[in-house]
């Protein structure tokens, strides 16, 4: 044995004082599908953590080096017993096993040490980088901040996505739903938002928490690697409850994520939390509820499925100055089936959140990425958090795009259209191109303002539609290299003053002169 371990054991023995440990206990009467029925535990409380006593009757030598303790979570208090879910390997529990009450509500560790780490739904590290040493335990279930403790949303949270920051702005403390069919870029929007936070000054940069619920391990691994590559992992915590994890852990993961976030919010920091996705959490909760024999309701979901999501999302808020001024911005993701947003879970979450970003398969297949339908996407509180500069360039954008979508159907008969309509269609087509964006390439807000200013001033009117994206990229590069001062001014002041406008106009003229070949429509 390692001599340091021997020394530790000697020290432990030296300071040892015999004591007895007292606990309320019960006995497992039935076990199956991750749920146990326990007789006894008369003093148990809801959401209390229990420990399954596996070592009873086992020899000391067999108990040494055994797997870590197996925990359970009480979910039903019944007349003559309790029902609990096993937070781990079900096969380790057997009938007749003694169960110890801990008197503790489920808590997860939180703190600076968690930054850059991947943890499971119980807050245990699963990235092989070793255990946490200095953390604070945060309760998984906690009452959301009250009305008096809250402040309205006024500070923007930049996603780095032009279509969102301009037309569906998000504020710190807001809950904005990302909804759409499978594989059309919901996670990409969320991850780009995390990556974009690196453009924020360190003291104002939100702590990001990505909660993966029921996802494939390979997808989560890919996301972690992307965040690491983009230098975003250093301010991000990943909570992973993969598809292979028990339903109980998938149901708990979002609550663990927000509990970790609350530590930072209480310390006056801003937090961005992504729940990817809540439809899978709802399915896990349905499974658990049916196993707990709770009465099923619509689509077999339990009666409290709305409360499950509302109590989770209510914990996202912005606190007032007396409470430290911290915030949690939540971006829950919901996956729809065949674009059906009127299903049970989507309608529930839509009604809870402060707006939603709709991603449409049709746009995705047309090559419009991010495939955001700005016509039906909405942000109910974010506009008050938008900078003046962005407001001034994005004011009429939503209307212009809506009108373009109306006229789009007539495009194939363009020769019969009057000049005004034809111009509007031409402008709309180019605006759609301008709003396209590659994944993993969020754009800083000052650059977005400059590009949208250019688009709004018909800068791209003479550019061939298929070249708009390339010209936009060249313009961005040019502005970044030659007019960094103007961009810095927009970022600093958050406004688009007359001088800044003049500087941008001048920059655009210079660019046009230098790249005449790009400004000739075919």
């Amino acid at each position, binding site marked *: 044995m390692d001599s340091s371990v021997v020394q530790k*054991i000697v020290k432990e023995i030296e300071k040892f004082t015999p004591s007895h*440990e007292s606990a*309320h206990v019960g*006995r497992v009467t039935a076990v199956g599908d991750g749920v146990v029925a326990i007789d006894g535990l008369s003093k148990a409380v809801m959401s209390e953590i229990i420990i399954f006593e596996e070592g009873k009757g086992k020899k*000391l030598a067999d108990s040494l080096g055994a797997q870590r303790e197996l925990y359970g979570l009480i979910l039903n208090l019944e007349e*003559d017993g309790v029902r609990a879910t096993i937070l781990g390997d079900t096969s380790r529990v057997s009938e007749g096993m003694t169960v110890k009450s801990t008197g503790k509500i489920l808590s997860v560790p939180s703190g600076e040490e968690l930054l850059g780490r991947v943890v499971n739904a119980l807050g245990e590290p699963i990235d092989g980088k070793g255990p946490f040493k200095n953390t604070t335990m945060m309760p998984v279930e906690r009452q959301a901040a009250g009305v008096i403790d809250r402040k309205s949303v006024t500070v923007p949270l930049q996603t780095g996505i032009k279509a969102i920051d301009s037309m569906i702005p998000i504020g710190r403390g807001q809950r904005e739903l990302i909804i759409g069919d499978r594989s059309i870029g919901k996670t990409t929007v969320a991850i780009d938002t995390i990556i974009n936070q690196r453009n924020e000054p360190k003291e104002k940069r939100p702590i990001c928490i990505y909660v993966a619920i029921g996802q494939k391990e390979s997808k989560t691994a890919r996301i972690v690697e992307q965040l690491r590559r983009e230098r975003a992992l250093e301010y991000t915590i990943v909570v992973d409850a993969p598809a292979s994890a028990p339903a109980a852990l998938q149901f708990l993961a979002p609550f663990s994520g927000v509990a970790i976030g609350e530590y930072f919010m209480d310390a006056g920091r801003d937090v961005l939390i992504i729940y990817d996705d809540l439809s899978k959490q709802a399915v896990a909760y349905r499974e658990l509820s049916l196993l707990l024999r709770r009465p099923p309701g619509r689509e077999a979901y339990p009666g409290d499925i709305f409360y499950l999501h509302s109590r989770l999302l209510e914990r996202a808020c912005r606190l007032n100055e007396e409470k430290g001024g911290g915030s949690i911005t939540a971006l829950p993701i919901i996956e729809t089936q065949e674009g059906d947003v009127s299903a049970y879970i989507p309608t529930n979450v839509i009604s809870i959140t402060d707006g939603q970003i709709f991603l449409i398969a049709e746009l995705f297949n047309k090559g419009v990425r991010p495939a955001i339908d700005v016509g039906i996407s909405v942000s109910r509180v974010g506009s008050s958090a938008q900078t003046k500069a962005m407001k001034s360039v994005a004011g009429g954008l939503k209307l212009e795009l809506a009108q373009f979508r109306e006229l789009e159907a007539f495009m194939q008969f363009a020769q019969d259209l009057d000049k005004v309509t034809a111009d509007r269609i031409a402008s709309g087509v180019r605006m759609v191109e301008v709003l396209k964006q590659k994944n993993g390439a969020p754009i800083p807000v000052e650059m977005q303002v400059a590009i949208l200013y250019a688009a709004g001033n018909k800068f791209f009117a003479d550019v061939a539609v298929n070249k708009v994206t390339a010209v936009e990229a060249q313009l961005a590069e040019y502005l970044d290299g030659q007019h960094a001062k103007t961009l810095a001014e927009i970022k600093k002041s958050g406004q688009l003053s007359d001088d800044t406008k003049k500087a941008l106009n001048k920059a655009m003229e210079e660019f046009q002169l230098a790249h005449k070949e790009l400004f000739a429509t075919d």
Partner: protein
Amino acid sequence: METAYAQALWQMIQSGTAPKKALSALHEVLALRGRTALMPRIARAFARIAARDQARSGIVLSVAQKKDEKLGLKAIKDILKEMSVKADEVALNVDESLVGGWRLEGRGRLVDASWKKDLLSIYNRSIA
């Protein structure tokens, strides 16, 4: 349904009704309702309730070696008083895996003063 009948029967007996009388009353009710076929299932449910009650009310003191019994009984004196249990109600059990000390379990409580618990705790703290 049989559980509800069994619970009713159990409560009658617990409240002082003679078992024979309680059983005949139950039979009478079942006959009136045409449910006498439930009788064997009620009997099984009743046995389960009785077993559960036995498990709940029973109290066991485990010691590592037979010779530790006296020491154990002395150590749990105050605990038994607190639990309103008489010493003669305690069943004794020898469990060598405890290594030393004692362990009292019953009536929804577990008091563990075994050496095994202490040694495991020292080991776990040392390798952490």
